[in-house]
């Protein structure tokens, strides 16, 4: 990666031609894996993420069991070919942190107390990455949990905002992320406007943060509608077939 400065906004437009508050194209497919109890394929621009849910099933090792509720396990993993320079396979510090914050983003909506002593396992594979993979992973995981029939209060929707060339914009792509001034992923429970994930890298003024959060929340609501529509489509279709 060359580090020389590039212009990210020209004539009021982003390099991709998107507006400041415009999401990249999104594609959602529900129930794409046979072996998993629930699954979802989620595309956000050039990001391709696949999520699978297994469980609730017996928790191993046993001392990780919680006698009062299910324990959610979340594994975020990048395929070695998903990035420009091949990524060494297996977990690293970054993916471990992402796994943890993503789990905490989903925990609040899952009715974990219904399944004491069990594990609900969420596996996210990033097949191609273009900035925003953790948000794509959370969106996929949330739909996969619903597809697995895990009782939930609501879906969780996630998107990042950032700052490029002094402007606060929605959903950074890799170029904007590399050369921009700030990146802030947000996850939200749309029905209650509850934020379940919030991270920030870079530098934002207080007003920029406040505006950015509003833009992110609006973005989350749009994604929420698409997630819902994908689930409705899958289940209205399979209902007709059977």
């Amino acid at each position, binding site marked *: 990666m060359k580090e020389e400065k590039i212009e990210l906004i020209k004539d009021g437009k982003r390099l991709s031609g998107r507006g400041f508050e415009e999401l990249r194209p999104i594609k959602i497919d529900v129930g794409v*894996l046979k072996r998993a109890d629930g699954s979802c394929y989620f595309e956000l621009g050039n990001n391709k993420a696949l999520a699978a849910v297994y469980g609730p099933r017996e928790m191993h090792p046993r001392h990780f069991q919680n006698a009062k509720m299910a324990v959610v396990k979340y594994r975020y993993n990048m395929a070695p070919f998903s990035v420009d320079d091949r990524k060494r396979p297996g977990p690293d510090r970054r993916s471990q942190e992402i796994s943890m914050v993503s789990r905490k983003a989903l925990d609040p909506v899952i009715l974990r107390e219904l399944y004491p002593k069990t594990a609900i396992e969420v*596996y996210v594979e990033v097949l191609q990455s273009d900035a925003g993979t953790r948000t794509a992973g959370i969106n996929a995981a949330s739909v996969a949990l619903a597809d697995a029939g895990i009782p939930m209060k609501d879906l969780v929707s996630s998107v990042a905002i950032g700052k490029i060339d002094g402007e606060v914009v929605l959903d950074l792509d890799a170029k904007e992320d590399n050369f921009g001034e700030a990146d802030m992923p947000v996850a939200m429970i749309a029905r209650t406007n509850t934020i379940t994930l919030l991270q920030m890298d870079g530098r934002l003024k207080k007003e920029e943060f406040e505006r950015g959060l509003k833009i992110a929340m609006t973005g989350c609501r749009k994604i929420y509608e698409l997630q819902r529509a994908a689930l409705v489509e899958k289940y209205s279709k399979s209902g007709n077939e059977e």
Partner: protein
Amino acid sequence: MGQEVIEDIRKDYVYDLIEQGKRADGRGFLDFRDITVERDLIKKADGSTRVQIGDTVVLVGVKVEPGAPFPDTPNKGVLMTNAELVPLASPEFESGPPGENSIELARVVDRGIRGSETIDLEKLCIEEGEKVWMVFIDIHTLDNDGNLVDAAALGAIMSLLNVTIPYEQYGLTGEDTLQIRDTPVAVTVVEIGGNLLVDPNVYEESAATSKLTVISNADGSISGLQKSGSSGLTEEKIVKMIEIGIEKAREIREKYLPKI
């Protein structure tokens, strides 16, 4: 424990059906499930293929990067094959360092490509002793309904056929298509109660007493073999399995791979 009982019942069911000359999905013993391939899905990879055999899905990506050669082969490029049985793909897979199954999968695929000298590694030398191209084949399993090896091997050769060596990206000059000299295809044959079957699904795999992966080339030669499973095989059986393997590989090659 409940899981194990169900496993046993399934095994018996598969076994009984096969004794009657049938398979649960209606296939003949020597029929593959439907194969679909999609190429170049991953723009970040230098070559990639998604292979689906029945409900088994494997995504193979190839990345080519400059690096140092091994000291004992200073004028040769490096080929590295890696497989991840990610827990997303099956309730039986677990996270953690690669286990013996993923190592075996990667090594069998690697052996077929190496044995057939599909890639001329000497052509991948940039500067002797200093810099060569390293070809990474990464096998990412997405859904395991059996026979990962055949799917991964097909994905590997199809991805290699589409590889563009990223000379420009690294400020180098040279021939940018990767020269491919052969088209190795893996076919796994299993034995269940004395019967031989190809392309086992996950239940057939668990009912199989032995398993032989045969990797064969365009001229009908063999470039890799791997026997697994708990029982031994007679010479007669092995010869038969190899014949089946070569014949099925020929059919797959004709359908999915170019003539080299």
